[in-house]
């Protein structure tokens, strides 16, 4: 059948089961929008294209599907770059469709022309400029396929306006065949057997889990593996929820703001099993001192992650879920008791670490941000989807909301992108209309994409924004306090809007708590309101996130409260 590029594009989206698109229109995509309204796909009109990408990211993480956004050429396209870079760092499957000027104008510095394929080459998993309508169906198939397979990531498809209107006979492309792309899913059995032997011999093992556990849906396998072999588990920021945060074997997060016991365990273990991680510098601190006494096993689907930052004894390329399933077969329950005995000393040492320096704060007359997060955890019974902004708010969310399940913690980990939380919450809420979705925010970050409140109101998305308002760019202030002689250069945010009034101006509800005694009531009231709410908590201005490992120091060198 003869179809236009726009119609083919819609057909490919329908074939990929796309139900929701986040986007913002413009001249180069006007015809795509004209086709989009004729489909059943719901379009969420954001207020800034960066918001569209973060929303698609949040949607992807909450739903497990590929997130999709659609923006116009030029400024629409450049506005997506930060969102794409964030999704790229965190390996989140999204497809970004950008309009482009007509092919005959490309290269002429036409109105609203930018080389978005060139701009995003280093921050996408792959990208395409579609020059010919006959390539469109195939490219779209590849884009979705690349986004979700192997190590997932963002794929951008740039479509010139004349390709949208051009007509051709539509031939559905059922199978993607890329001779050069063939991710390794099945881990090497020989290597896994070596791991099983190491697990049997180890006296002080630790599992270090990352975002790969969540992306490969391996948390059940991970939990079984840890339980059966009595191995304590820590995780990177991206791995939170991959192992239950209330489990006795849970050590807490590792790294710069990791718990004392996680960092000590990682440093004194004799076996570290890293799964779905990339040994980021925020995790390892000084690499030479990281897990110095341990044999390190590294399982990851991306070969470039392995041996990039640290030397490992056993590298294994493969899917985390597959690897853990195999390991669970190799290590039988018969081994379990003997293994527990062998590890008793280690586990009791970890218990000591747990009691010497637990996460703590002192709630006196000013609201402590940690207290707000703890209360939120209690009131939501740990069942909310939490997104975060970036900075202290993000770290307190990670430390004090004990994630028991995967896909409930949505944060910009690798890029650390302020302004992520609110649009990501919108995306997550689109995926789960009936769940409680909360953005834990700082007063600085929330202003970076505050305009998305209008989106939440328009689509009746009852996202809750919890602002831990310290009137500072808190995390930067904390560094200045500790390492730059308390010179608070440009981190004071005294001139901020009244967030309660701002919420109301957007047509949402606004609430404020200024005293510790009000925290619970405000949270409860906010959660009970059926629409979007901003809750502004006036918290201790100069509270710090602890423990803290100074950048580049060994992770045993923690500044404690």
């Amino acid at each position: 059948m003869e179809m236009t590029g726009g119609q083919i594009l819609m057909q490919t989206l329908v074939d990929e089961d796309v139900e929701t698109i986040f986007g913002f229109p413009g001249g180069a995509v006007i015809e795509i929008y004209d086709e989009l309204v004729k489909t059943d796909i719901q379009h969420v009109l954001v207020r800034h294209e960066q918001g569209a990408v973060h929303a698609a990211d949040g949607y992807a993480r909450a739903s497990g599907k590929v997130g999709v956004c659609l923006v116009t050429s030029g400024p629409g396209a450049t506005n997506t770059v930060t969102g794409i870079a964030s999704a790229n760092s965190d390996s989140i499957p999204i497809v970004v469709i950008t309009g482009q000027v007509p092919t005959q104008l490309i290269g002429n510095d036409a109105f609203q022309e930018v080389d978005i394929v060139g701009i995003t080459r280093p921050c996408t998993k792959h990208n395409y400029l579609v020059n010919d309508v006959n390539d469109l169906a195939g490219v779209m198939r590849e884009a979705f396929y690349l986004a979700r397979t192997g190590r997932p990531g963002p794929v951008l498809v740039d479509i010139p306006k004349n390709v949208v209107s051009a007509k051709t006979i539509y031939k559905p492309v059922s199978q993607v065949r890329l001779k050069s792309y063939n991710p390794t899913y099945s881990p090497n059995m020989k290597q896994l057997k070596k791991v099983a032997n190491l697990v049997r011999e180890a006296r002080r093992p630790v599992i270090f889990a990352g975002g790969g556990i969540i992306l490969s849906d391996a948390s059940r396998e991970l939990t079984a593996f840890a339980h059966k072999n009595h191995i304590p588990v820590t995780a990177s920021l991206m791995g939170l929820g991959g192992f239950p945060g209330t489990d006795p074997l849970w050590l807490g997060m590792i790294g710069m703001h990791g718990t004392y016991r996680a960092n000590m365990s990682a440093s004194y273990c004799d076996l570290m099993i890293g799964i779905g991680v990339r040994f980021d510098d925020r995790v390892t601190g000084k690499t030479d001192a990281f897990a110095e006494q341990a044999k390190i096993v590294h399982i990851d689907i991306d070969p470039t992650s392995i041996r990039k930052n640290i030397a490992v004894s056993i590298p294994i390329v493969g899917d985390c879920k597959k690897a853990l399933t195999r390991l669970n077969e190799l290590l039988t329950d018969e081994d379990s008791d003997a293994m527990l005995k062998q590890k008793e000393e280690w586990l009791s040492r970890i218990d000591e670490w747990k009691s010497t320096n637990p996460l703590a704060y002192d709630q006196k007359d000013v609201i402590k941000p940690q207290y707000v997060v703890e209360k939120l955890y209690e009131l939501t019974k740990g069942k909310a989807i939490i997104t975060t902004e970036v900075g202290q708010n993000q770290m307190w969310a990670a430390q004090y909301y004990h994630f028991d399940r995967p896909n409930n913690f949505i944060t910009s980990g690798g890029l650390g992108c302020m302004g992520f939380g609110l649009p990501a919450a919108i995306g997550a809420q689109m995926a789960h209309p009936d769940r409680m979705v909360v953005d834990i925010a700082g007063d600085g970050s929330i202003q970076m994409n505050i305009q998305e409140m209008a989106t939440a109101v328009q689509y009746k998305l009852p996202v809750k924004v919890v602002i831990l308002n310290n009137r500072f760019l808190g995390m930067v202030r904390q560094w200045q306090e500790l390492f730059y002689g308390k010179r608070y250069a440009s981190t004071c945010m005294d001139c901020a809007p009244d967030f309660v009034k701002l919420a109301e101006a957007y047509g949402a509800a606004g609430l404020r708590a200024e005293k510790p005694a009000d925290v619970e009531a405000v949270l409860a009231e906010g959660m009970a309101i059926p629409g979007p709410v901003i809750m502004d908590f006036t918290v201790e201005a100069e509270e710090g996130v602890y423990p803290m490992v100074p950048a580049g120091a060994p992770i045993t060198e923690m500044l404690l409260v």
Partner: protein
Amino acid sequence: MNEEKHILTMLVDNQPGVLSRVVGLFSGRGYNIESLCVAPTIDPLVSRITLVTKANLPSIEQIEKQLRKLVNVIKLRDLSGKEAVHREMALICVMAKPESRAEILRIVDIFRCKVVDIGREHYIIEVSGSTDKLNALINLLKPMGIKKIARTGAVALFREPN
């Protein structure tokens, strides 16, 4: 750790932007490219890139893995060892004063290269061979005065097993 020279050869999709992906990976990660050579293979849809870089062992491992990760890189091989044939070609424009012409021609003869252009004051010499051979020739010609030089950078092929 010691930096060593590596000759990487790869088959890539012959499409716009592919070279830029390969090169961008080097510039974006702070690796240096010493030479680069690209042309289509027998299959017009596939090009061969030969690239010479200097790196220590962990870096070259990372570079190779990153290159393999590019969707348009079909196959990659490190051809630094003896199992491969390496050649490079150069055009050298050398000053050819009457008194040095005989000497130049003798050198050309010894190196089995060719004079491909003759002017009143210059020769253009075409030479191919190992990088060492080219360097040796260039060193010998230097005293006469080299005006311009164009080198292709190395190309290499794995020796087929007999």
